[in-house]
């Protein structure tokens, strides 16, 4: 997507949005609700028109009539979108049949998809009778049964229990290992961190930053926060701590000190050594590495879940 602008009357949903995904990648579109993630996906799918810019999939301009491209892509929408009255197997069979006319091949795809989402025990169940998590799995099966080269997931884990969520994320990784390129939108930063090779941070329709997790964290002058409960807190102790190499800031309240270290992930052991050498005692300690939320906060001035 190049310089794509999409307006809904006065609201600019995509504001000169740039984005690309390479073959074999899992790329996450991360942003809060209303940041333009679904709009971007709908433009990629040829469902939405846009006001400016270019959108290409497989090097071809997106068009609602482009059946060849449609044959190669898969889509798992945020809303549950299948035939509620039909059984699990009838739904998957129908969707797979839209891509594959050979019944033998189609049925093989259906079996694979059912196994993939772990719905073997529920094939004869009416879709409407499944639990929320199982419906999500069916929603995914309908979108991936035809083994798409490029598959787009639009917040597939919204309102899903932890077990189903893990199942879904593991499945997506496996799909990627089997050759599918994956675009994954979410507002859960943990999912983006766990799943994606590359992350695009979106806010107000713009691409704020993109890269690997490490690249994104490096963008924002990151620090590691070490929380200590000091046995004998005092100004002298805090001064000693502030002189330890790598410590950029120390604050203390009610005996609890927060030490900011840089670069993150490399200084903790030397900090502990220095605390020991300086006879600074503490009753507990934990460390917080920087997260995408910190990155998001720095880039947009607000937390991801605001």
């Amino acid at each position, binding site marked *: 997507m190049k310089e794509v602008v999409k307006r809904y009357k006065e609201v600019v949903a995509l504001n000169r949005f740039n984005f690309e995904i390479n073959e074999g990648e899992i790329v996450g579109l991360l942003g809060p609700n209303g940041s333009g993630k679904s709009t971007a996906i*709908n433009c990629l*799918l040829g*469902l*939405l028109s846009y006001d400016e810019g270019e959108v290409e999939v497989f090097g071809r301009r997106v068009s609602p009539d482009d*059946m060849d491209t*449609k044959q190669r892509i898969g889509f798992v929408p945020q809303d549950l*979108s299948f035939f509620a009255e039909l059984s699990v197997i009838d739904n998957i069979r129908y*969707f797979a049949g*839209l891509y594959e006319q050979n019944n033998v091949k189609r049925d093989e795809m259906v079996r694979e998809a059912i196994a993939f989402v772990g719905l073997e025990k529920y094939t004869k169940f009416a879709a409407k009778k499944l639990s929320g998590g199982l419906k999500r799995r069916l929603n995914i099966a*309908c979108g991936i049964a035809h083994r798409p080269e490029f598959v787009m997931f639009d917040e597939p884990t919204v309102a899903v229990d932890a077990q189903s969520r893990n199942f879904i994320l593991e499945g997506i990784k496996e799909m990627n290992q089997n050759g599918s390129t994956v675009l994954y939108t979410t507002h859960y930063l943990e999912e983006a961190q766990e799943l994606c090779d590359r992350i695009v941070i979106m806010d107000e329709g713009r691409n704020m930053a993109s890269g690997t997790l490490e690249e994104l964290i490096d963008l924002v002058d990151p620090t590691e926060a070490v929380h200590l409960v000091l046995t004998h807190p005092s100004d002298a102790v805090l001064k000693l701590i502030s002189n330890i190499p790598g410590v950029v800031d120390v604050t203390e309240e009610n005996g609890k000190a927060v030490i900011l270290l840089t670069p993150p992930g490399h200084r903790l052991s030397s900090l502990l050594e220095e605390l020991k050498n300086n006879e600074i005692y503490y009753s507990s300690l934990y460390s917080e590495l920087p997260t995408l939320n910190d990155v998001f906060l720095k880039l947009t001035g607000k937390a991801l879940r605001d």
Partner: protein
Amino acid sequence: MKRFFSHMALNVKMSLKDKSTLFWSFIYPILLLSLMAVAFSGIQSEQKSIAVAVEPGHPYADVLRQIDVLDVKDAECDEALKLLRDKDVDGIYRADGVLLVRGKGMNETVLSEIGSELKKVGSVYASGRSLDFTRKYVERGDQEQGMLYVTLSASIGMFALYGYFSGISIVHHVQANLSSLAARLSTTPISRLSYVSAGLVSGVAMSSLQTIGLLLYLKWVWKIDYLADPVRTLLLVLTASFFGIAIGLFIGASNRWSLKAKVPLGIALMLLLSAASGMMGPGFRLYVENNLPWLNRYNPVNMISRTIYRLNVLGSTKEFTENILIFVVAGLILCIVSLIFMRKRQFKSL
């Protein structure tokens, strides 16, 4: 072609597995018609002929006596007026050809229709040709059928158009800006023409099956034969079902209202047209026919009910071909316009 059958199978399966569809399509019509049959069959059996006084010298006195629906009392002017005042008769055919009636009820309308008919065909009658005035009257006004037939025919007309609901459902499966399922299907290599055609064929089949089932039920259980002319009746039912689905496609595709708006709209429209056709009793129908005759001429419910009644009760094919053609042509136009609305395109919003 394979996908066409796959879409058809999908539609049929969905209809058969949806309990609410099954109820409203098959059970509810049977319940309603049974209720009507119970409620009105008593009235029908007790229905009396219309008492009317005929003054000596009325030019068609002999003809009036031949009409089964009339109970003719020969009376002089004063005696006739007394009968009318005492409510022993509903009207007087005076010697000068004028019809005198008490009010504006159904019987008075029937008398008026007969009077008009006699005047219209008077010259032909004078020429000596044999005429069946009863048949002629019934074919024109349909009033004689009584409440049972009026309400049953109108209800059948309404149920024959139930394909409307299939029509809007089809659109909400393929037009991306109407439902998330449609948006999803629009990202697949689905052929809209194939999907809509399959939905149309399965919808016509289901809707026709429902109407024919209803007619068989009336015939076998209530001994009311609306299948005396089965071939023409089937053709009428098929074309009416097609027209019903075409209306649904058009209403479904021409705007962005939700299903929650389109379904009640269809129900309201059908009830109104059915009421105009006499489903709620003959009063409203008479009012419409007297004041808005064009409405009932092209009211699809009335077209179906009128034709089905004529075919099977009167043995008349009057308006049959015309009505079939209207349903087919109008249905085709609605389908084409709907397909234009449903063409593949990118939407400004979903």
